């Protein structure tokens, strides 16, 4: 068995079939994770009574365990909970109707939420308190001040971390093969096994992921320049 360069291209083309699944998983988990993360971050910043310890425990546990564990726990645990509840309430709902990719969405969103909460928290905390006070002094309400003054600045601060998280979730989506979702990694395994050309298939997968990562990095760099435009020529 020696390297067959031509097959790398063949494998590369067949990996494109699985690209949508990888992108769906990444985008859904980052998007939902961002919403969960913002909620968790606000709970922790404002120290909301009952929710605060819960939110802290969630972040601590998720960050302390591998992403694979979250996926396996959701995959095997959620059906037990859903079917138990449905049985107790007499609903006709059964967990088998959930598509496999749904488990990936749920578990990776939970993973991303914990990491995102740290990103958002760092971003909000980094914005000077005086900004909020200045917004109040000209008569803005709290939601207005948050939306118009604090959040745009927080976004600029947390953009690099956000991009790292996005790349992390893109790479993490390769784990979805353990619950039989055909994303790029699973497709590479299929192509490799059917043609008995493992190295070529994984080279193709690596190149595809590398390309996507570089794209994300470039896009972030461009966005960072744009978002930070207001900083140009400042005194700080």
């Amino acid at each position, binding site marked *: *068995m*020696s*390297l067959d360069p031509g097959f790398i291209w063949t494998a590369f083309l067949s990996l494109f079939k699985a690209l949508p699944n990888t992108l769906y998983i990444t985008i859904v988990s980052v998007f939902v994770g961002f919403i969960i993360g913002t909620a968790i971050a606000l709970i922790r910043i404002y120290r909301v009574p009952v929710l605060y310890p819960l939110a802290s425990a969630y972040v*601590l*546990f998720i*960050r*302390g*365990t*591998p*992403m*694979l*564990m979250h996926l*396996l*726990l959701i995959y*095997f*645990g959620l*059906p*037990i909970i859903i079917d138990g509840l449905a049985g107790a309430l007499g609903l006709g709902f059964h967990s088998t109707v959930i598509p496999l990719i749904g488990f990936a969405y749920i578990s990776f969103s939970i993973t991303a939420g914990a990491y995102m909460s740290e990103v958002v928290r760092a971003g909000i905390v980094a914005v000077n308190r005086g900004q909020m006070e200045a917004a109040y002094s000209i008569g803005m309400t709290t939601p207005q001040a948050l939306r118009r003054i604090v959040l745009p600045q927080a976004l600029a601060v947390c953009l690099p971390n956000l991009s790292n998280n996005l*790349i992390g979730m*893109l*790479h*993490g989506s*390769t*784990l979805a093969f353990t619950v039989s979702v055909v994303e790029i*990694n699973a497709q*590479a395994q299929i192509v490799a096994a059917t043609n008995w050309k*493992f*190295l070529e298939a*994984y*080279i193709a*997968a*690596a190149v595809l*992921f*590398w390309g996507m*990562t*570089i794209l994300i990095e470039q896009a972030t760099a461009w966005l960072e320049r744009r978002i930070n435009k207001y900083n140009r020529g400042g005194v700080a």
Partner: protein
Amino acid sequence: MGRKFDIHYLLDFIPKLLSYLHITLFIVAASILLGIVVGFIIALPRLYKVPVLQRASQVYVSFFRGTPILIQLFLIYYGLPELLKLVHIDVSRANVLVFVILAYALHSGAFISEAIRAAVNGVDRGQVEAAYAIGMSGYQAFTRIVLPQALAISIPILANLVIGNLKDTSLAFTLGTMEMTGKSQTLASATQHFIETYIALSLIYFVISTILERTFHYLERRLLRHEKQVAEPAQQYGTRRLWKRTLIARFEKGG
């Protein structure tokens, strides 16, 4: 989808999984130690701006940071024997663990090289000059002045890397390595008690990463001890921003 949840299995599985803990920890320790060596080799061309090697190390870092660790595992598992065949070395009977450790070492090497770069650049140039001024040799200045400070700067980054590496080892089972996750797979399919197995495994990972985090936190505080005593002049002469930030954070906490 498995049987009814039974807490007894949870208690039964924890010791069984813990008996494979040493393999997980061995992978982490070996790959981090090797990764530090790799990291230094990768970081040096960029620190000293060696023409061609600088570019090569950039590509290395970009590749290993730009592809999932799972893909890297497979690439090395299938690719390394091919590469070595070119120089007539047969590794087809080597232990899978060797490939796993190598993959994680090359992976963390890329991240460690970035940490080393940040840490060395983080130490003020004036520190070296001051060391020379009182008659230290280059080696003395490095080991006594630069290294301890760089180490303190890199501890938080290193801590994240080690904990990340610990969590990444859960993927080694894909190559058939019998570490904790690999063992959990066999336990789960043998007993059909999946959820108990994975809860047990998660708890173990959680406890270990918490212990690691605490240890590194303690180490960081110890290594930064000297900063407290020279806090005033350090700020006056405008040392690195990173340390300033940690100092400020400490003062705000009322330390």
